[in-house]
């Protein structure tokens, strides 16, 4: 057992920047690096890709991330834990082996499977969001249960330097190495509660170190162009000290940590994960030094008997069109264009949204501020059951060139297929995680 371990988080979502993870691996003196790359809807989209080609379905940036970082990880003896496996951890592990062979590196990869419970659902399970059976939302594409730290532990006990998962609760990616290295027990709810606070603070990477925080003149953050991502030193007693690599940009403060602690949290006294029901209400944060924050006081109660399942379903298509108006009465002409589109399309779309970008498009109100903008971009969006019908939105907006108000310019049109997400619960005994080891 170790007295202390250091874990870095080099990515907080699938599209996150590549360099901060590399800098952490190079200079962070890490024991573990976590790359958290799997948002709620990402796995359903990945399942669609896997259906078209069974060798795909993992994170689209996996190859670039691994190629860049793998040699450094091996040189510095940093173990990687990542959910870039998405819908296909086995294919992801195979891809990492291919990359290692290409780079002439010797490596063991462990893939964790078992989160895919698509074939275990009947469609009659109740969706938590709607209170109705899943199949009423639409044809089901995917169903993935959130695995916990216990699913990762057997992989940590192997010689694998890279551990690739599919759907795992984000904090569990951090709780697993804490339990494994610090000798924590899987029924010590106080420890797992504190571990979950640590994981939750870390999981969005740059959001702890000043990313998504800055507001010029009010919340200043230095050198955001080189924003560094965080690491955490955790002692066996659970005390956590968060920091970042010297010389990187950004800021780690009690204020950035508070924003992240409450991010996406419903009831802070009952934060459900597969490992524990964590309680964030007694957490204390302390600025120990510049860019260094201590966190203590995470607590918890016994883990839930069920696991949350994220279910992706086919939700049709969305068509969008945009066009700009500028100069005198820009908003007036844009609103005329919007009214014309409304009349032309309202019979064919149950759900049509018309935005005047620059006025009220983002918050649906401007709380009483009504300046006269110099330019306005009209945006129209509608949902449809076929791609062809969805395309009508963009076609009608484009047609405003010669069939709408004066001076419209810069029309663009888009359509995309929509994957909806709902959740349900499954008895945890029905979910059996598995570890597959591959070597190069």
């Amino acid at each position, binding site marked *: 057992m170790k007295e202390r371990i250091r874990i870095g988080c080099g990515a907080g979502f699938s599209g996150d920047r590549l360099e901060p993870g590399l800098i952490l691996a190079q200079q962070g003196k890490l024991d573990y690096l976590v790359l958290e790359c799997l948002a*709620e*809807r990402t796995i359903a989209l990945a399942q669609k890709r896997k259906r078209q080609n069974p060798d795909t379905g993992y994170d689209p940036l996996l190859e670039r991330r691994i190629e860049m970082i793998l040699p450094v990880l091996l040189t510095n003896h940093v173990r990687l834990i990542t959910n870039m496996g998405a819908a296909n951890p086995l294919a992801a592990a195979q891809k990492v082996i291919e990359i290692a062979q290409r780079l002439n590196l010797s490596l063991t990869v462990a893939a964790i499977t078992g989160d895919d419970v698509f074939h275990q659902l009947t469609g009659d399970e109740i969706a938590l*969001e709607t209170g109705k059976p899943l199949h009423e939302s639409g044809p089901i594409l995917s169903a993935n249960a959130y695995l916990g730290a216990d699913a990762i532990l057997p992989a940590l006990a192997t010689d694998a330097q890279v551990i690739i998962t599919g759907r795992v609760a984000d904090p569990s990616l951090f709780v697993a190495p804490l339990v494994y290295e610090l000798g924590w027990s899987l029924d010590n709810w106080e420890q797992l509660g504190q571990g979950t606070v640590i994981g939750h603070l870390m999981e969005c990477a740059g959001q702890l170190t000043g990313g*998504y*925080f800055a*507001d010029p003149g*009010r*919340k200043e953050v230095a050198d955001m162009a080189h924003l560094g991502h965080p690491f955490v030193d955790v002692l066996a007693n659970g005390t956590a000290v968060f920091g970042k690599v010297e010389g990187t940009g950004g800021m780690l403060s009690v*204020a950035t940590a*508070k*924003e*992240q*602690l*409450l*991010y*996406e*949290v*419903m*009831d*802070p*006294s009952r934060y459900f994960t597969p490992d524990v029901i964590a309680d*964030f*209400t*007694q*957490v*204390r*944060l302390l600025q120990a030094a510049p860019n260094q924050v201590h966190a203590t*006081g995470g607590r918890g109660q016994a883990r839930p008997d069920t696991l949350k399942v994220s279910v992706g379903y086919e*939700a049709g298509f*969305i068509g969008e069109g945009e066009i700009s108006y500028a100069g005198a009465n820009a908003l007036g002409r844009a609103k005329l264009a919007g009214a014309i589109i409304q009349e032309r399309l309202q019979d064919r779309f149950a*759900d*049509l*949204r018309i*935005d005047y*970008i620059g006025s009220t*498009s*983002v*918050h*649906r*109100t401007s*709380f009483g501020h009504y300046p006269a903008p110099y330019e306005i971009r009209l*945006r129209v*969006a*509608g*949902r449809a059951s076929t791609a062809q019908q969805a395309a009508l939105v963009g076609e009608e907006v484009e047609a405003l060139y010669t069939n709408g108000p004066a001076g419209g310019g810069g029309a663009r049109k888009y359509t995309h297929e*929509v*994957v*909806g*997400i*709902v*959740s349900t619960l499954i008895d945890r005994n029905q979910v059996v995680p598995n570890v597959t080891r591959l070597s190069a």
Partner: protein
Amino acid sequence: MKTKLYDIAHSRAGDKGNTLTLSLIPYKPEHFELLRNQVTANAVKEHLKQIVAGDVIRYELPNLPALQFVCQQALTGGVTTSLTMDTHGKSLSYALLEMEVDVQ
């Protein structure tokens, strides 16, 4: 004196399906009581009435100190199926900060 929440507090928005979460964190801990008294769940529901269709629940975290608001039916269906531009509702922290409170 009336002041915007923006002048005394900061906030981050988060999303879970069609539910919006908004933290509210005073820059100065001594403003926590003022926020607790004036930024009630009902006051937030009224302020965000054009945005939030469902209930607003407030949680208090005096240790931080901070308040957390959980707003139901606030994201026009949620990130994947919404027709809005900001499908996550990530910008809505600044909608909360538009609210005015009385400061002595």
